[in-house]
C-alpha cells in the first residue's frame, strides 16, 4: 500500500472517534483536577494463521469450513483448533459445512452497545449449530422484517447462513436469518447472498384517530415534558446525559404532535410539529406512553421492543437511551 492509498482508504480507527489533543480542569469539592485527552492505540498486521483457510473460505469461496477429529469424529465449527484435546491432540481435518442449522440457544439482543457498535443497535449475536456439527458457530443474527426483537429467534430456530456481498475475511462476512423468512427458492440457494434478500423498510405507520382519552393524555404528556425540560436546566446529571448532543425530534401521537429539541445539554419542548426536517421521528399512537415514560412506568427502549413505539432510524437508539435516562437523572439530582 502506498502512502497515498493509506491516506484515502477507510481507517481502522474511524476519524470521528479520534479526539483532539486537549486538557481541561474538573472541579470537585473545591479542588481543581487536571484531565487530558489520551488514547491507548496500537496498529497491527495480524496474521489469521491456522484460521486463514476458514476466513479465506468465507471471503473467496463463500464456503464454511469446519474441522473433524479423525478419532472421535466430532466436527467443530468454527475451526478453532489444530488438534483435538479430547483425543490426545489428534490432528484435525477440514470439512466443508452446510449453510443451514439451528440456533444453539436464544440469542441476546443488544440495545445499548459499545462505542464501535452504537450505530448497529439493535443487533443480535448468537450461535448456530450447523448440520452435523458438535459446536456452535458465533454469528450475527438478523431479521428481514424490521426491528430485531427478542422474540424472533429461539433455541432450535432453523436458520440460513447469508454471505455479505462485500467480504473481507472476517466473522461479519456472514450472518444468519430465520429460514422461515425466506421463500423456498432462497432456502435452497447456496451460497445465499445479502443482495438476494428483501430487507423490507417499514413505512412510517399512520397515526390513529384521536379520542378524548388521547387528547387528555396528550395534554398531560406535554405538561410533563415541559416540566422535564425545566428539570434538565437544574440537573447536572441530565445535562451530562445530553452533553454534546444535537437532535431535532418529531414525536407524533393520536393526541397531537410534539417537538423535542436537544442542544448540547439542554432540552426544549413544544406542542407542535418541528419547523424543519427532524433527525428522528417517533410515533406512538397513545400519548399515555410519554406519561408512563416520565413516571418511571415504561422505558422508551422497552416500548420500542414491545411495538408500542416506532422510530424512523435504528441507529438513533442512542438518542432514545439519552431520553430514557432523563427522568431518573432529574429525580436523583432533586434528591
Amino acid at each position, binding site marked *: 500500500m502506498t502512502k497515498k492509498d493509506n491516506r484515502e482508504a477507510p481507517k481502522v480507527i474511524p476519524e470521528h472517534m479520534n479526539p483532539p489533543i486537549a486538557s481541561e480542569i*474538573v472541579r470537585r469539592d473545591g479542588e481543581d483536577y487536571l484531565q487530558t485527552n489520551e488514547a491507548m492505540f496500537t496498529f497491527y498486521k495480524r496474521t489469521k494463521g491456522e484460521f486463514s483457510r476458514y476466513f479465506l473460505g468465507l471471503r473467496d469461496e463463500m464456503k464454511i469450513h469446519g474441522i473433524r477429529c479423525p478419532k472421535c469424529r466430532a466436527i467443530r465449527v468454527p475451526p478453532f483448533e489444530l488438534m483435538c484435546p479430547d483425543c490426545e491432540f489428534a490432528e484435525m481435518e477440514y470439512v466443508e459445512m452446510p449453510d443451514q442449522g439451528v440456533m444453539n440457544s436464544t440469542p*441476546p439482543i*443488544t440495545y*445499548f452497545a*459499545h*462505542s464501535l457498535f452504537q450505530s448497529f443497535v439493535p443487533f443480535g449475536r448468537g*450461535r448456530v449449530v450447523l448440520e452435523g456439527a458438535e459446536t*456452535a458457530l458465533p454469528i450475527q443474527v438478523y431479521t428481514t422484517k424490521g426491528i430485531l426483537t*427478542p422474540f424472533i429467534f429461539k433455541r432450535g430456530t432453523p436458520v440460513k447462513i447469508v454471505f455479505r456481498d462485500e467480504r473481507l475475511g472476517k466473522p*461479519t462476512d456472514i450472518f444468519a436469518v430465520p429460514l422461515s423468512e425466506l421463500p423456498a427458492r432462497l432456502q435452497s440457494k447456496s451460497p445465499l447472498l445479502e443482495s438476494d434478500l428483501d430487507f423490507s423498510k417499514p413505512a412510517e405507520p399512520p397515526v390513529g384517530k384521536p379520542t378524548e382519552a388521547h387528547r387528555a393524555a396528550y395534554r398531560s404528556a406535554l405538561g410533563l415534558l415541559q416540566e422535564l425540560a425545566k428539570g434538565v436546566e437544574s440537573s447536572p446529571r441530565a445535562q451530562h446525559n445530553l452533553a454534546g448532543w444535537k437532535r431535532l425530534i418529531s414525536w407524533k401521537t393520536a393526541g397531537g404532535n410534539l417537538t423535542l429539541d436537544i442542544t448540547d445539554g439542554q432540552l426544549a419542548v413544544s406542542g407542535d410539529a418541528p419547523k424543519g426536517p427532524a433527525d428522528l421521528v417517533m410515533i406512538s399512537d397513545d400519548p399515555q406512553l410519554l406519561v408512563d415514560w416520565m413516571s418511571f412506568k415504561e422505558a422508551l427502549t422497552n416500548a420500542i421492543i414491545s411495538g408500542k413505539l416506532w422510530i424512523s432510524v435504528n441507529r438513533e437508539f442512542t438518542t432514545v437511551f439519552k431520553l430514557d435516562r432523563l427522568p431518573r437523572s432529574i429525580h436523583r439530582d432533586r434528591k
Partner: protein
Amino acid sequence: MRRVGIVGAAITPCKGHWIERTYYGLSQMAVRDCLKDAAVSVKDVDGVVYGIYNDIFELAAIPEHPLHGIVGMANKPGMRVTNGGATGAYAMLAAYTWIASGLYDSVLVLGVERATDCFDFESMTETPEVIKTIGWSGDTFFERELGWTASDSYAEMVLAYMDDHPSDLKPQISAKIAELLCQQAKNNPYAQRCDELVTAEMAMNSRYVVYPFKLLEMCVYSEGAGALLFASEEKAKAISRNSGKPPIWITGVGASNEHSVAGPDYRRHKYMGRIWSDHISAQKAYEMAGIKNPLDEIQVVELHDAFIKQLQITMGEFGFVEIGRTDALVEEGIMTPGGRVLVNPSGGLTFGGHFVGGSNVMSTWSARREMINRGLKHGLIHGTGSTVAQYGVCMVLERGE
C-alpha cells in the same frame, strides 16, 4: 498445607468516577486502611498479589509496577493476577497458595481498577467506551467483531438457562432482588449507590440494555481499591490477639474455568444453560471445608452478581436452591430479610460497586465484616468472569476465636 486466615481488610469508597485519585492513590488508601485494620506495620508483610483486570482501563501494560514501591513492598515479591471478572478471587487464590505452601507468612492482596477514565467522544459519555474496553476481552478471532460484550455474553448464558427453565427467573423476582440489594447497600458506607432508592417496580420498568438484562438489574462500573491481609495460622493468631479481631479462616477453596466454545456437553465444551464453573468451584470448596449442606451450614454469601438473573443461577449452582427453581430465593424467603442465608449484604456488585480487579476483595471485606459483627460461623465468597461465565472461584470462610 498450612492453614490460612484473613486478618485485615479495607476498601475505598466505590465511585462511578474517582477524579480526585489515580489508581496509585486508591491503592495506597486501601493498603493503609487494611494494615490499620490488622494493626500491623507494612514492614511485617512478606509480599503482595495484585488483582488488576484490564490494562486498557489503567492505560498501562504492567499497571502494578508503579504500585509496588508506594505500597511499601520494595524488594519483596509481587505478582499480578488478571482473570477477567474473577481477577480478585484468583488473586486471593494465589495469595492463599503462597501461605499454605509455607513459602510466606503474611501476604497482601490488593485489588484495584479504574474504568470511567475511558470516554467516548462521539456520544460524549463514558459507558460505551467502558463496554468497548471490556469488549477486547472476548475471543478476538471469531467473536469480538460480532459485537461481543460482557453483558451480551452473560445474557447468552442466562437466555439458554431460560430455554431450559422457562418458568424460572420471573421478572418480578429479579426486580425484587434488585430492591433487596439496594436496601442492603445502605448498610455499606462505601457502596457506590448507598444513597439511591430502587424499588422492585422501578427495576421492572427500567430499560433493557441487552435482553433480558434491565438497567437496574445489573452491576455498575466503579473505580476503587480493596486490600486484604492473609496470614499463616501462627501469625494470624498473633495478629488477631493484637488487633482484637478474630481471624477468618479460609477452609475451602475451589476454582474452575470452562471451555469457551459452545457445545452440548459441558465436559467437552461450554454448555450454555449452566454455570458449571460456579458449580464445580463451589463443590470443590465445600469438599475441602467439609460442608455437606450449604443452606444449613453457611450463613452469609457474598457472590459476584454481575447480573441479578446470574445471581439467581449462581445460587442454584451453589446448591442453596434447585437449578430451575431459583425464584425460591424470594418466593420461599431464602434470601429475603429473616431468611436462611444473607446474600450480598454489601449490596453486591449491583449496588455496592464493581471495580473489577478488586470486586471480589470487596465481597470478602463484606463477608468478613458480617461474620465478625454478627458472629456468623461460615461464609462463602465467589468470583465469576470471562466470556459466558467461563471462570469461577469459591472460598469457604470460617470465623475463628
